């Protein structure tokens, strides 16, 4: 059954407002609208006039993501006729070049736009994205740092920069980026998780433990967080054990206080807690899949936990 015009528009609206990419769905819904010319009729209708152009833009971007260049060109042409001078439309042209892999043309287009308004951050970001997809990692970092110096409140840029640093194994710098992200949005537990992981990699197990705990505080029964807690407490306890058995008494105190500010008892109870919660997550029968999907990052919500994987977890916890 073909969805009605009003329903299609409603669907596209919901995609746009939720901020999801959903490119394939957008193209599926939007393509018949463009091809049948229904959008064209819509733009003469007073109520839909303003929506029509937004829809064109939305469908263009989705089409570029799915490499449906024919559809993209149709939309861009329609937009160009209506807004011949618009930066926003010209940006789409640049994105078309990008999608086709013609990076030099895209860069040319963006440079041209930046000459008109050198501080247009959207275009600046597009240019950066193009540079990132062609350039060397270090070059990319350099240009991104330049951008961040001017727009330090752009969290997407910090995330990207962090990613680039991580690729280069520059963990201290990556940690700095995540700190900035935490300052920008202190209630986002994804940033805490990232920070904990970087700190763990840097060897600051104690700090990492604090941040893993913060994650589990912000989102209840966060599997990823508890795995981290387990990892940290396990490692700290082992280290403390090693120190206690091998060194003199005086040295033990200094060495262990260098290692962690926590007592063995706290570590033990945290360790217990982590084990308990992880097992709880895997054992509770109702809604496990949904829970996992909402809690841990990167878990595919459609794969139920197999008994085998549960066994693996249990074995790991026993270590």
């Amino acid at each position, binding site marked *: 059954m073909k969805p009605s015009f009003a329903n299609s528009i409603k669907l596209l609206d919901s995609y746009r407002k939720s901020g999801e990419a959903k490119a394939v769905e957008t193209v599926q819904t939007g393509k018949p609208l463009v091809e049948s010319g229904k959008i064209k009729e819509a733009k003469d209708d007073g109520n839909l006039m303003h929506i029509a152009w937004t829809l064109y833009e939305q469908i263009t971007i989705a089409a570029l993501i799915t490499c449906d260049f024919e559809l993209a060109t149709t939309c861009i042409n329609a937009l160009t006729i209506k807004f011949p001078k618009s930066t926003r439309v010209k940006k789409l042209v640049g994105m078309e070049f990008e999608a086709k892999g013609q990076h030099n043309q895209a860069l040319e287009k963006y440079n041209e736009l930046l000459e008109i308004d050198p501080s247009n951050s959207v275009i600046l970001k597009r240019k950066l994205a193009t540079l990132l997809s062609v350039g060397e990692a270090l070059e990319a970092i350099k240009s991104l740092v330049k951008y961040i110096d001017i727009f330090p409140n752009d969290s997407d840029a910090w995330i990207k920069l962090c990613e680039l640093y991580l690729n280069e194994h520059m963990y201290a710098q990556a940690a700095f980026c995540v700190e900035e992200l935490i300052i920008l949005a*202190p209630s986002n537990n994804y940033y805490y998780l990232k920070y904990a992981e970087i700190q763990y990699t840097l060897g600051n197990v*104690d700090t990492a433990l604090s941040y893993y705990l913060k994650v589990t505080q912000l989102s209840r029964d966060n599997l990823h967080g508890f795995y981290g807690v387990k990892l940290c407490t396990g490692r700290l306890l082992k280290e403390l054990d090693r120190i206690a058995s091998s060194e003199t008494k005086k040295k033990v105190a200094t060495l262990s206080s260098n290692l962690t500010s*926590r007592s063995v008892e706290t570590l033990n109870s945290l360790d217990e807690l982590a084990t308990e919660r992880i097992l709880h997550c895997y054992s509770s029968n109702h809604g496990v899949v949904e829970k996992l999907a909402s809690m841990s990052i990167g878990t595919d919500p459609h794969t139920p936990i197999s008994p085998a994987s549960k066994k693996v977890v249990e074995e790991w916890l026993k270590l």
Partner: protein
Amino acid sequence: MNSLTNVGFNFPFYSVDQNMFLDPEIRNWVLFPIMLVMILVGIVRHQISQLFVATPKPITLKAHRQQNMLTRAGLLIQNSKYIPKSSFEGRLIDYTKAFESGDYLEFPENKDAGAPNPMSDPKVLDSMMDGLKTQMLGIIPQTLIMGWIQFFFSGFILTKLPFPIGNRFKSMLQDGIKTPNMDVRWVSSISFYFLNLFGLNGVFSLFLGGNNSASGVDDLQAMSNMGAFGNQNQNNAAAAAIQDYQKLFLEAKENLELVHYRFDLDQIDQTVLKMYNKNPSSSSSAIKNKNKA
């Protein structure tokens, strides 16, 4: 005081029963035209002012940088407790140094100059010129209409209000007519102009949407402010544009130094243990609660 004979028997709000009839020609050729002209002028004015809307000048990158850095410092002050102490202190040192030396200023070369002269900044001058232009656009047609009414219809009585009204409204409704005894309900031409000037707002927002620039009320304000160089909005805009950023940065620096750093995650062990109903008593005394720097 009233010379007419039947004055004593009147209701206080009413004046004398005045059997006065207006020529319908006055209605057709004065009342309606004035209203029509005012509406049309308002609409035309709105359209013309659309043409005059200055495209905002793009903000330079350095100005962005300056502004964003202030926001960033503010956010750090607010959320410092979520990052480890060493990270906060590192930032504190960096920011303090940068703010003192004026690294983030749009024009670092005149950081010691104090608040800049508003007239020296072309941006401010431009915005002032734009403001003047739109003001003139408002004042000129209003003056013309007023002159037209004064010249042709001065002393005209145009209409009668359908309801009684107090004597105090005489100066509002019968401007330009010097008959002390006439019923207040009669409206003179120039007063009708003013009634329209203030009352047509609703009509304009019907035609042109809420945020139109057709109404004449702002212009009256502008006229009364003419001597004081521009109207209120403009003064505000100008003031914002010429802020002394060096001062703001020094303020931000001071605020940063005043931050009493307390790590939010100090108590996290206890919080989490409690949250998941684990009895933290066994370890409550043990936490040393001193995070390594």
